[in-house]
């Protein structure tokens, strides 16, 4: 049994209960506004600079019973989207003052439309998430986020000033730097944290006021240094595919003789990746970071870079095997499956493909397949 970290416990405490957590209640109690964001093409820095709390709309560690969502969003939509809407129907997101999304995928934009039509919030906005990674895409996105800044300023009745944007970039850069350090530590032969713990850290980053998160993150890194904690497992696993917010899914893998050392999720390594340039005008710097500054993701048309990135991470983190978790009805991941498998075969990295419902715990079937996969990794190693 590994000793728990005080800083991580505090992150979890502040982010609980989900979603209207201690941190959210405190924020609202002080008269602050909370703006939900749905996917990684929403620049949180702008919301933060407006003096509002950015909060990622998602599910959490418990599965959500669909009791009405499918009357609005049909069941051939991914369960992540339906989960978010069900939580809204259940009144769980009643604390949101606004919602910002992007057209990153068909389902994200439809969730936005349904929310706007049936439960319009005081502030609502949607951005375009370019599918290309070039200068034209940067300019297109820049124009969109400039509009977003204008509209949010109007809503907040205060023009978001450049220095506040620069400060927000500094705070978020610091958060990314600290999260990246944690990822670096996971490259060790015996990483200091489990994959499930790392996921809780990423979730906290998306749900707590970022400056508070940064303080706790510094404490966590300090605790890791002081305690010299090591996770002693034989197999090193990478999780790829859709965002997971249910840490019990990772825990199920790690209940075997394996530890998740890296991921390829938007809410994981991409969320911690890189830095926004601080030597150029803040809005342009944000546009460049959000379009070009992070690893290629599944929504980019040319996903060659995504496949290369996954391969590169398997080497850097000395991964024995990949668990590919795809939420059913995810079009993007569906189209990458064939070539991903081929490319990882070339690299000699085995993949376990798991189709799952977002938020649901790993069932017996998944556990049996995961066990067989670990045994296969074991026999390869020997």
């Amino acid at each position, binding site marked *: 049994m590994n000793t728990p970290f005080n800083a991580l416990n505090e992150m979890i405490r502040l982010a609980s209960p989900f979603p209207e957590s201690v941190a959210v209640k405190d924020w609202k109690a002080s008269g602050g506004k909370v703006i939900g964001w749905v996917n990684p093409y929403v620049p949180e820095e702008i919301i933060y600079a407006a003096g509002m709390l950015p909060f990622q709309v998602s599910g959490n560690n418990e599965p959500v019973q669909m009791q009405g969502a499918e*009357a*609005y*969003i*049909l*069941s*051939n*939509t*991914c369960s992540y*989207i339906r989960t978010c809407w069900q939580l809204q129907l259940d009144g769980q997101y009643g604390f949101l003052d606004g919602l910002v999304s992007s*057209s990153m*995928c*068909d*389902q994200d*934009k*439809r*969730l936005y*439309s*349904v929310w*706007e*039509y049936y439960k319009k919030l005081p502030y609502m906005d*949607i*951005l*375009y998430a*370019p*599918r*290309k990674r070039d200068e*034209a*895409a940067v300019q*297109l996105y820049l*124009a*969109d986020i400039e509009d977003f800044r204008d509209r949010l300023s109007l809503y907040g009745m205060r023009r978001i000033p450049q220095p506040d944007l620069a400060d927000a970039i500094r705070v978020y850069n610091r958060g990314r730097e600290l999260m990246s350090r944690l990822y670096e530590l996971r490259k060790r032969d015996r990483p200091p944290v489990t994959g499930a713990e790392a996921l809780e850290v990423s979730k906290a980053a998306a749900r707590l006021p970022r400056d508070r998160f940064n303080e706790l993150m510094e404490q966590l890194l300090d605790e890791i240094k002081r305690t010299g904690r090591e996770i002693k497992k034989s197999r090193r696993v990478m999780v790829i595919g859709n965002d997971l917010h249910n840490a019990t899914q990772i825990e199920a893998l790690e209940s075997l003789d394996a530890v998740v050392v890296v991921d390829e999720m938007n809410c994981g390594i991409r969320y911690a990746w890189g830095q926004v340039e601080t030597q150029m005008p803040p809005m342009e710097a944000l546009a460049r970071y959000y379009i070009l500054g992070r690893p290629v993701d599944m*929504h980019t*048309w*040319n*996903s*060659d870079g995504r496949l290369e990135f996954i391969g590169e991470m398997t080497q850097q983190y000395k991964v024995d095997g990949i668990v590919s978790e*795809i939420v*059913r*009805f995810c*079009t*993007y991941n*569906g*189209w*990458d*499956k*064939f*070539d991903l*498998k081929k490319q990882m075969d070339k690299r000699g990295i085995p993949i376990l493909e798991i*189709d799952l419902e977002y938020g649901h715990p790993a069932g017996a079937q998944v556990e049996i397949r995961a066990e067989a996969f670990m045994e296969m990794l074991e026999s390869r190693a020997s």
Partner: protein
Amino acid sequence: MGTDNLITPEGLAARLKMAAEAMRKKPGVMKSTAGYMELLNKYVGRIITAKEHGKFVVTHGTQQPLEIYEAMDIVGVFNEFWGVISDVVMVESVPEALSISASTGTPNEVCSFFRNMDGLMHVGKWPHTDMFVYATSSCDNVKAFHTLGRRYGIPDFGLERPYYPFTPRAMEHWRNEHKRLIAFLEEKTGKKLDYDRLKETVRLSYRLTEVALEIDDLVAHVPTPMSAECFGGVLLALRLMCGTQEAVDFLESLKAELEERIANGVAAVNLERFRVIWSSFTPFWDTGLMGFMQQKYGAVSVTEVLQLWRGQANWILDPDDPLGNLAYRTQLAPGNCQYSPSIDWAGQVVEQARKFKADGAIFNNNWGCKQAAGLSSIVRDELLRHCNVPTLTLNVDVIDATFTSRAEVEAQMDGFFEMIESSKAYKERRNLK
């Protein structure tokens, strides 16, 4: 996994030729139906003979400026409608192609328009393709073009369209994307675009739009003169052959026939009981379904979303700016509201329902389409709120006939039309007690 029924381009052409001949002889069908089959045959024929005529072939997605292809002597293959055309003459092909696609690891939850292409390419039965071109403005599945391009060594180009399409900035960006497309095509073909030829194909395309809108007005007539067997002709002419004289000729002849039918009091059915709007797409997977509805329920199909032009579709904004006009045309083009916010789509459908005096809407929820799955409720509720038009949602696969049985659909339609007939709104609309 069978492959006996997989259709080749040559097989498709042969069957379309037979279908045209059969339609010419069949009593009681609109005579334009034969012309419709012939148009499809010409389309497929151009693809088959492209290589021998030294032409390049582009397999493309929706919202494409086909006028540019025509002006550059490039032959287009619209990936989505390849499955639609094969369903017209050989419904057994698509399920086999889909099972081949599944065998490559492609999940069955992605759109079967694309899985059909995936499967046929895997076994070498897709038309020879030199390039892939696609746009944001259909759906996430267009990623398949790059994926398959990577797999088969086919270069690809995507046109990126902002989420809100009609702002000046969005229009400028979209126009520039067309410029980039031309540069891509010129590089790959080694040919320069002749702007005089482009003006001509744009002229033909605009004429096609005008005739399509005139046909809309005729179809809106009560009772409608458009019979089910010819209903798909307008859509396919617009989506496959715009910028060609052949498409204009076909729609002109269809229009003349509809005018004649109205003048002679000939309607799709003797007793028109229900007017139906297809609020997502028509039943491509079961091309006989609309005819069946006419016969069993007296339910005529009067309009559908994929062939809807926005407003009056006056897309020639500046005669000296063919690219700007085309960029605008592809925004206004039928079906483009799919990519827009759901409320925009719903607004278009409401307008359509009013214009065509619809009694009921049928929303085909395509298993692989996430756009539709997320907007159906808004379309349904807006139709009911603004026009008192109820919606039947059918869970289907857009081109796979094996996904849903006719019996299942029939059972749902029995209840739906019975419900409409007993509704107050229907009785008021028809002045019934």
